[in-house]
């Protein structure tokens, strides 16, 4: 047996190594120097991310349970970059709030485990691997959500997440079992050939879909989102909203575009309805949120609705626009969460009204927040505009003009609430505005990367062209 085959799993292997190193490291690092764990984790993960950019062969392992190709690597790298930014942004928080309780290493281990699960989920070649990846990616996050053990809402978030997740995975399993019943195999490659749109398959598909929709937080499977985001530590909310959601979108896309392609007649209708519902519900709820985390939670629900516009057409164009959008969305949302986190860490304030007059005391943070929100809303020249425009173009290419119309209506609604934040920061003056503070280096670095991303990703067209070429893999 040639072990070099296992190099195909480079992402997983290295990440596993990182996890193990951290666990081992914890043993050797003295209590006084606990902070070194953070630097170590970030450093190691940085290396991991960098290595991820190197090219890797296509191929599959374990009789097709695991497969990889350039597109999947691209996904993984995107997730890596997101997690790296997230680590940078939350480094200070971990140092100040978590390290005191001596639970820093676990945090990283859990986080990386979850990411590890996502790798497998994305790379899965059959439903079993998919299921394991899904669970591995969800369960540690539930633990992380409840990580601030002294806060009631943190525990509440954890319990809500795990119960909902269990429900979702139960439903998804039921669906998978039905699909298994009709197709006779849990291998994707077999399913493609065996599947046909009969009643049982449809039921199985819908149940299975709801399990994934839960992770992407599509309406009506989204209810956990807001509560969990609000209760969890911001780093975890941020993780859930970008990394977890991004990974789920990727795998959903892979499944829909390849495995479940024969059911396109079903799922395009399904996505149509759900897209509309998701956009509207997300936006309408976001309108009146005061808590920034909750606000971003609903905003991320709405964004998920937009993503479906790219998925619905089921071709290379759709895939490329979705990946591009997710990439941009990761940067934008991380920037927004980053600012929220920075402020929360310094002052403990998380309400929109606390942000009043922020520009006059902390101009840079406000500018970053504004750019992030504009990017989320889709205002040129920042990246979000390009992402959204291409999504709409994709949907329109198959004639979904009405859907695009509803989407643009929603863009307008969403602009309203994004502008509410801008209003608080820029337009208002306040006597008890958050005073000026300086962020530590990690946070600044993390925010800087997101800002650069927001500014560059849209205008720099070769990136999109690269993704577009990769997306051919999904045809």
């Amino acid at each position, binding site marked *: 047996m040639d072990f070099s085959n296992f190099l195909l799993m480079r992402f997983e292997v290295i990440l596993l190594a990182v996890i193990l190193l951290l666990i081992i490291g914890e043993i050797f690092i003295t209590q006084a120097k606990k902070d070194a764990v953070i630097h170590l984790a970030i450093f190691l993960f940085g290396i991991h991310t960098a290595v991820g950019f190197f090219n890797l062969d296509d191929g599959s392992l374990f009789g097709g349970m695991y497969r990889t190709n350039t597109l999947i690597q691209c996904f993984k790298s995107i997730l890596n970059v997101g997690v790296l930014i997230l680590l940078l942004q939350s480094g200070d928080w971990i140092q100040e709030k978590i390290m005191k309780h001596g639970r820093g290493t676990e945090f990283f281990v859990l986080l990386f485990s979850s990411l590890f699960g996502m790798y497998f989920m994305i790379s899965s070649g059959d439903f079993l691997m998919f299921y394991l990846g899904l669970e591995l990616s969800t369960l540690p996050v539930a633990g992380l959500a409840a990580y601030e053990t002294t806060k009631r809402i943190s525990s509440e978030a954890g*319990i809500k997440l795990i119960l909902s997740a269990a429900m979702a995975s139960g439903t998804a399993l039921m669906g998978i079992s039905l699909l298994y019943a009709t197709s006779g195999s849990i291998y994707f490659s077999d399913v493609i050939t065996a599947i046909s749109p009969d009643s049982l398959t449809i039921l199985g598909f819908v149940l299975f879909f709801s399990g994934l929709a839960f992770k992407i937080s599509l309406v*009506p*499977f989204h*209810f956990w989102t807001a509560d969990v985001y609000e209760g969890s530590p911001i780093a975890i909310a941020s993780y859930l909203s970008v990394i977890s959601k991004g990974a789920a979108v990727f795998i959903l896309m892979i499944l829909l575009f390849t495995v479940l392609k024969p059911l396109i007649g079903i799922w395009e*209708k399904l996505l149509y309805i759900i897209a509309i519902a998701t956009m509207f519900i997300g936006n*309408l709820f976001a309108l009146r949120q005061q808590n920034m985390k909750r606000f971003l939670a609903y905003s991320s629900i709405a964004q998920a609705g937009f993503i479906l516009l790219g998925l619905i057409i089921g071709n290379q164009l759709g895939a490329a626009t979705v990946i591009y959008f997710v990439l941009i969305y990761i940067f934008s949302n991380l920037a927004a969460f980053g600012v929220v986190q920075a402020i929360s860490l310094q002052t403990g304030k998380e309400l929109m009204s606390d942000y009043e007059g922020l520009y006059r005391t902390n101009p840079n943070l406000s500018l970053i927040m504004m750019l992030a929100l504009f990017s989320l809303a889709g205002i040129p020249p920042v990246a979000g505009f390009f992402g959204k425009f291409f999504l709409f173009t994709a949907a329109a290419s198959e004639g979904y003009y009405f859907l695009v119309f509803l989407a643009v209506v929603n863009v307008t609604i969403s602009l*309203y609430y994004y502008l509410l934040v801008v209003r608080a920061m820029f337009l208002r003056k306040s006597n008890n505005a958050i005073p000026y503070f300086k962020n530590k280096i990690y946070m600044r670095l993390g925010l800087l990367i997101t800002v650069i991303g927001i500014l560059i990703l849209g205008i720099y067209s070769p990136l999109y062209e690269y993704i577009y070429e990769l997306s051919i893999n999904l045809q």
Partner: protein
Amino acid sequence: MNISYIILIPAIPLVVFLLLGIFNQRIKPSVSGYVGVFGLLASALMSIYAAYQYFFVSGNVDGVFQTFSQKTVWMNFTDSLHIDMGILIDPISVMMLIVVSVVSLMVHIYSRGYMKGDDGYTKFFAFLSLFTFSMFGLVLATNLFQIYIFWELVGVSSYLLIGYYYTKTSAIAAAKKAFVVTRFADFGFLIGILIVGYYTGTFDFETLNNPEGSAILNWASSSFMGLSALTWALILIFMGGAGKSAMFPLHIWLPDAMEGPTPVSALIHAATMVVAGIFLVARLFPMYYFVDNGFVLNIVTYVGAFSALFAAIIAITQTDIKRVLAFSTMSQLGYMMLALGVSGYDGHEGVGFMASMFHLFTHAMFKALLFLGAGSVIHAVHSNYLKDMGGLRKYMPITNTTFLIAALAISGVPPFAGFWSKDEILVAAFEQDKLIYFVGVFVAGLTAFYMFRIYFGIFWGKDNTYEHTPKESPLSMTFPLLVLAFLSMTVGFIPFSEFISPNKVGFEAHLNYPLAAVATVVGLIGIALAWVFYKKENSLADKWAIGFGMFYKWTSNKFYFDEIYMFVAKKIFFKRVSEPIAKFDRKYVDGTMVGIGNTTVGTSKKIKGLQSGRVQDYAFAFIAGAVVIGLVFIYFWT
């Protein structure tokens, strides 16, 4: 004939305007007065020279007065339609040059005295120059659009000059009224121009007026509501002219316009701008005559005649001397319109046209004189009202004499200028329509009566005692009076018919002695009545006024036309149109837009209960959603 130098006639006032306007603050008042006067003097001399050249040297070829024009494209609309800027020299434009330049020059000179010490002295001369420039442009216009352009410019100069005393509320209102009413008329004018442009493919006067041209020959090619399109156009253009010339029912601005400084009233609202309407109809006379066989001319006639009568009646009862003169102007303008309306085209039939122009010419002289005389009086007693005057002949001999000459001229007493022109009008009317003739004669009598009413009221009548003893005006003011008085006496002897006629071929016009006698007698009767009523202070007039009762009251209130217009403007347009629209906009249009936003936010509030916070509800939504979607797909969409 070389006409290129004529461009300087309007150009000089323009330059003066720009000079005085831009350096308004830096220029000394004394200097600006001289700049204005000498500028205009140059224009006037050139006008006279041009007239001499045209009428006596090179204008007349084989008995026909030639039309000279020089133009350049100013603005392109389509391949055929364009606005030209240029100068058109024909008998009436040359005549108008004389009128405008002479009267304007006199007014400029006069103003140096009249406006002395005023804050806006320089500004005043700037505006006067602007007006003069625009008026020159108007009379020299080569096409409909050019005339419209200058038409608007004289309108705005008039606005600025009426509103010259801008701190006076009444002056502001008057200026606004004048502008808006004439603008309303111009609305018709503009649409008329558009129709002409569309159906004839040209704005050019020479093309339009050519009796053999396609414009006139094809007048019946298209029709709208029973009349041909061109007929409508001419009616609408006449509407523009009627607005500017204060014809009934668009006359209401003219009396109010007397709020302006008196020299302005003399120049704009008596001699020049208000005749623009007459000039417009005269300019397009061939069209008016040939299109629809002169149908529109009937309208012109009746509107003119009615205005003449209407204004003359009102003039009798007014107590503000400038208003009397204003209504008198309106009445005389009606006369001119009437004359145009009854005119024919060829040879002696064109006497109406000729008479109208003739009267325009003489009227400009004596009416300017009347106004300037009135200004001189007002200058002396600081009041416009008859009741504050009386017995002024002792204090102001020159004014007295010149005013008397003007009054005699307007009353049609031979040999003063008015007699000649008015006689021609009556001749023309008599030949065409007896009713119109009788109206004309009656108005002539009324004119004499009201004119001498104010003459006696000012210079004779009761001997008022004055706080400040009135003095004769300075030379700068009396000089123009004397010049104009001289002209009022003499211009009647000009053989107008040899120079001006519709078809540009001169003809012989003779005095019609019976008609002349009738008119003169009627005029003298009017004067005699005025003598009886007003020569000495007595209560006869009041008794008669009571005798007329309601009629007197209506008349002195100008038949409540101001009130009607005010009602329409304020109560209907402001209150019933504008205000509801403004409210509608805020409440419904804007309300809808804001409502959409509020509904969205409201919906958001209503549905917040969905997110109950209970994990079991979430699970229910989850499972119900999945099952319902599954069932829907299985049973409906496969």
